[in-house]
Every structure is written in C-alpha cells, then in structure tokens.
C-alpha cells in the first residue's frame, strides 16, 4: 500500500520529468508549459497513467511528443506507464502556462493575446505586442506561419518580423 503523501510525491517527480520533454516545434517550451499534459495518476493496481491532449487535431508534433514522452518514461524505469489521449475539454491557447508565455516571449514569439476567437472575417487581425521591442504598432503578414499554432507578424517600430502564437 503506497502512502498517499509518498504517492503524491512520486507524481510530482513524473511532472518534473515531463517538464523536461520539449515541444518538438517550439523546443523552448516543454509539454507542461504548453498545457498538453492533462493528468498524471496511478490506478488502483499502481500503474501510472499519463494523459496527453493534442493542440490541433492534425498537429504533426502529436506523434513525436508521444514518442518523446514514452522515451522519457522508459528512461525513468516506467516502461509500463499507460499513455492516454484526452480530447475533452479541448486544448486552447489559454492552457499555455504563465511560465510558457514568458519563455515564448523571451524566445521571440509573441504569446496569444485575444482570448476569444471571433468566427467572423479574415481582416480583423488581433493587436499583437512585438516580443522584441514591446511596440503595439505591429501588422499581420500572414495568418499562417511555420506551424499550425503560429501566425506571422511584423513590427512597424523595430521592423523585425516575428511569429505570433495564435489564439485558438
């Protein structure tokens, strides 16, 4: 019988382990920063269950992340851990942690700003702050960028182009 405090402590260790697994497309973020680890728990038989949720349904990184998590768990001697896909509630950019937002900005990617996505119209671009100089005078170059989760912007103050982590 595992003592509850000890069990909770072990789960903390698993979270710490997962916090070392980078997002393959934005390696400055861990999968915990990104908010896609949904749960770490043990079932009554003592088996570890880790719940992961995809960002976008078709995000190609999802498979890579599963493999990386599996490898990290194997390396920690947790080869019998069960990886579960969790779809509900759906991931949104609001799942990004505060630490994740800070890391994104330091890396030169503007974190998401508008919490609600209006279904209307292409040309209502959200107002985004330049991650380099902090200017609000920026413009959208493309609604789509190098990965499904990013759009492309340009700062009109410092003239630098930058990625914007889209609000979903």
């Amino acid at each position: 019988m595992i003592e509850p405090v000890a069990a909770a402590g072990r789960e903390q260790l698993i979270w710490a382990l997962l916090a070392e697994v980078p997002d393959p497309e934005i390696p400055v973020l861990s999968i915990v920063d990104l908010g896609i680890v949904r749960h770490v728990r043990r079932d009554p038989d003592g088996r570890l269950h880790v719940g992961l949720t995809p960002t976008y349904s078709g995000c190609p990184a999802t498979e890579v992340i599963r493999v990386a998590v599996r490898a990290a768990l194997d390396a920690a001697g947790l080869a019998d851990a069960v990886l579960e896909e969790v779809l509900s509630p759906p991931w949104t950019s609001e799942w990004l942690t505060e630490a994740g937002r800070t890391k994104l900005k330091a890396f030169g990617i503007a974190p998401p700003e508008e919490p609600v996505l209006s279904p209307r119209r292409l040309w209502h671009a959200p107002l985004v702050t330049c991650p380099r100089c902090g200017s609000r005078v920026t413009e959208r170059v493309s609604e789509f960028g190098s990965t499904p989760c990013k759009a492309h912007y340009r700062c009109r103050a410092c003239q630098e182009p930058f990625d914007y982590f889209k609000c979903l």
Partner: protein
Amino acid sequence: MSARTRAPNERDPAQQEAHFRYVVRLGDTSLVLGQRLGEWVGHAPALEEDLGLANFALDLIGQARLLLTYAGELEGRGRDEDALAFLRDAPEFANLTLAEQPNGDFGHTIVRQWLLDTWQLEIYAGLQESADTRLGAIAAKALRETRYHQRFSSGWLIRLGDGTEESHDRVQAALDSLWRFTAELFAADDVDERMRAAAIAPALTELAPRWSARIDEDLRAATLERPAARPYPWHGRRGVHTEHLGHMLSDMQHLQRTYPGVRW
C-alpha cells in the same frame, strides 16, 4: 458516457451499424476535403494562401483520423483509421459529394470550402451536446478549428465576390456550379434519424435554417446571388459518388494498394 444511450447501441446491431455509418460519414467528408486541399500545396496563388490551405488540410485530416479511428472501434471488425482510409473503394466512401469535387481555380476551392466550413460549424456545434461523449469531444475540438477555417473562407468569398468584375464572375460561376451539391448537406436519412432519436446527433431540420442564414449573410456581403435549389441526384453519404472520387482515391491510396502493409 451515458449508459442510457450506450446500452441499446451495444445490443441492437442495426443501431450499432447506424452509429458506425454516421461517424464514417463525418470522417470521410473531412478526409476527402483535406486530401483535396492538399492538392493545392505548392500551387496556391500566394504563399499565405498556400500555407493556409495546407493548414486546413492538416486540421481536416486530423479530424478524419479521430473520427475514423472511432468508427473502426464502433464497427468492431478490427479496421483502424488506415484500413478505412486506404483500403476502401469509392462506393464504400460516405463523404458528402460536395467534398470530392475538384479544386478548379482558387475561387472555386474557396466556395466549396466555405459551403462545407459553414456546414461543419453547425454540425460540430450541435454534436457538442451529443449523448455520445466521445463524439462530442471530437466535435468540440474540431469546432474551434472550423471557426478559423470559416473565417478564412468567408473572408476570401467576400474579397473575391466584392472584388473585381473578373473575380466576382468567377466565384459566382463556382457557386452556380457547386450549389446543386448542397441539397445533400441537410437531407436526413435513416442513419441521421436513428442518431437523432438516440440523442447522438442534432436534428438536421434544425441546423438547416441556421446554415442558410449564415450563407445568405456572407453572400450579401460578397454581392453574390444565391442560386435556385436544384433536384438532388447525388448521395455521396450512401456511397453514390460523382466520377471524381475514384480518381482522387487512386492517387491517395496508391502507395498502400501497391505495397500492402507498407510502413515507414
């Protein structure tokens, strides 16, 4: 998962079959539309649109994977997402006929996309309340992506429709040519009826006016004319397709058919 609606599913083979078919139809529409959009990669009029259409293709194929994986489980014959996507022939595909129509020019693709995005908006919103919580979770996920798609496609519909004389005429022609396939979008059959009765699917009769109102609003902004309703000879959801699907599948399934069981 609601025991109330789950229990009859497992006991009644006709209900189980309808449940499978309902989910396959949704998955096939996303898959076929995603494959069509993928044909634009490297050919779109500008880099932004190329990236946009590829992003949507990715979302749609992601939705198809979730839906077809689930369909395979409902069917219970051991078929996974790959078996369903790559090893069925056209008559076994159950996508909406509109989704398989060729790309045409960029305006034609935009009209097809906008009609289907607007349809998916209503379907996925309705499915969020489904008694089938797994289907509801997939729909809730897909709905957020679909909003993004519809914003893009309606935005371009308006730019092109209310653009130059040339762009206006081209999207109007695309609309006139694709409109006949919209009759299928809300034509309920036995599968829809069973799913509605089990509270798994929303009533199509309730969704149709909402779709129609949104379509009219965008058409007004785009200065386009809504074509007259046409008789309805296509039933892609029942496996009766236009000739275009077979050609598309021969391309999409080539590798898996030529090298059965291939892995990479």
